[in-house]
């Protein structure tokens, strides 16, 4: 799925996705934010951050026509990425290729997210989620292994 940009709503949110969810870009993770040691930064534009979120939030339609989102139960979050031309796109300033959208919000609040390194287990999609993503061709075996080993 290619990376595309999306317009911002008047209330600063993006969306909704076809699940009815909104996204808000957090200032300290933005490409234009000043570097902080504990805050990763996107290297893509705000409207493109939403694209990464939308891909993960809307997920895939399986053979039985169920919509399966990229939700990781182990870490209570969505993991997103852009897999295009057999490569994972770089989305973070520090060469991150995976984004995390934590589910730490009230039900009707917008989601937010940031790029992560998979070195730490809380920033790594579970093996079960990766099984599903690989089966449906959302990610290749090469990148799946790199994620499992915490190398990207």
């Amino acid at each position: 799925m290619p990376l595309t940009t999306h317009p911002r709503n008047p209330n600063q949110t993006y969306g909704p996705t076809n699940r009815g969810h909104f996204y808000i870009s957090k200032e300290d993770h933005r490409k234009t934010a000043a570097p902080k040691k504990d805050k990763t930064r996107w290297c893509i534009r705000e409207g493109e951050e939403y694209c990464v979120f939308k891909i993960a939030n809307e997920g895939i339609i399986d053979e039985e026509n169920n919509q399966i989102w990229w939700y990781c139960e182990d870490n209570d979050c969505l993991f997103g990425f852009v897999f295009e031309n057999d490569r994972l796109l770089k989305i973070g300033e520090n060469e991150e290729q995976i984004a995390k959208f934590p589910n730490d919000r009230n039900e009707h609040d917008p989601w937010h997210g940031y790029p992560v390194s998979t070195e730490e287990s809380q920033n790594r999609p579970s093996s079960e989620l990766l099984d599903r993503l690989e089966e449906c061709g959302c990610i290749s075996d090469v990148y799946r292994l790199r994620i499992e080993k915490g190398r990207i």
Partner: protein
Amino acid sequence: MKPLKLSIHTSIPLQDGYLYAGNLFLVFKDGTLKTLPITRVLQKYFGEDVENFNFFNLAFSRNSWYTNEQADTLFAIENIKKTFTDNWEKYNGGNLEIEFSEDEFDSYLKLPKLPIFDFRLYGMRMFVGNRDGLFDTGIDIDPKNAKVSFKDSLERVFDARTTYLSAKSDSLLVTSNSDGLFHGRLVQTNGRLVVTESPIRKESLRTGWNGYNVVNYSTQNNFDLLLTEREQVKERTFLYSAADEDSKKIKITGIGEESFNMDEVLSLHSDLIDNIKYVFNAPKSCYFFLKNGEFINIFFNKYQNRNLLSRKIYDTWKPDSANTRNSKIISANAIKDGCVVEYDDSVILIKGHQEIPLKTNPVLSVRTYATSIRYKNIISIVDRNGIDLYSVFPF
């Protein structure tokens, strides 16, 4: 000079491969492991051409013989070295491609759940790590035909997710990411691996050996150097290939009671610390790839009373290619006089400040065999097309 290359294609796609005791151990995507002697690969390609068979057999099976004392004397004779170099030049850069069908492999073993995160052969045993833990089996190799057989079933010996393995001196270091680093030991000949219940360190991404000491990487750009306690033993408690004549019989009895963190190791070069992009080690030194594109190689291999006696910058180099300077590093492995770096979408051999591209696509596995006796200069790379073996020019 470019390395010699053998490309082996299989009808079922591969996930990983490992070279041990003259055999390729191959993990197939259908969940099986099969073996193939290197000599059979060469026989299939060269047929009756004994001269070239022998040349390649030496390059891929006893690469270490090029640099031992006898070879030093032999290659001091200019004509012999020239003939050897000319022959290498005839084949380097070319590609010897060989197809193997399913029924041409020897042994067969059903593996636990794929993907396999890592597997190692050591002490005539095979260790396989995946999401469910670490599995172990013994192997036998027939000295007449190099045929592998598995002595017992593949049994789970450790039940935490196992992502990286490295072995030396009767010890297997078992990396389990956020569950930590564990010490596995071969305590009895033909016995299963015994893994300690408590972790040596709480975080581990991968490990390496610095002589007989352990380097534990908690992230791609940070490590602890863990000192080991060891003793000389009369007999090894594990089996080894009859062709390997290493006479050192050292047993590791403890790991990490004493350690140095990276800041301590780099106390003489503290300006490097915030600039490290990726770090890994060879048996005697450590390579730092910096954010400004520089590569630095530092020796830190002498210790006494919690003091590092030697941490000398051995080499600093800024590569010409922007790709080598700037791309994301996925893994890096040492060879005898250099290293192999896996980038996001390429693999580069770096030797003597020279960059030699080996692959220009993302790959599944890159392995070198720096602690092996026979394969110090061999590289194996698995991708969707099969497995490529490279023998690095010895001079």
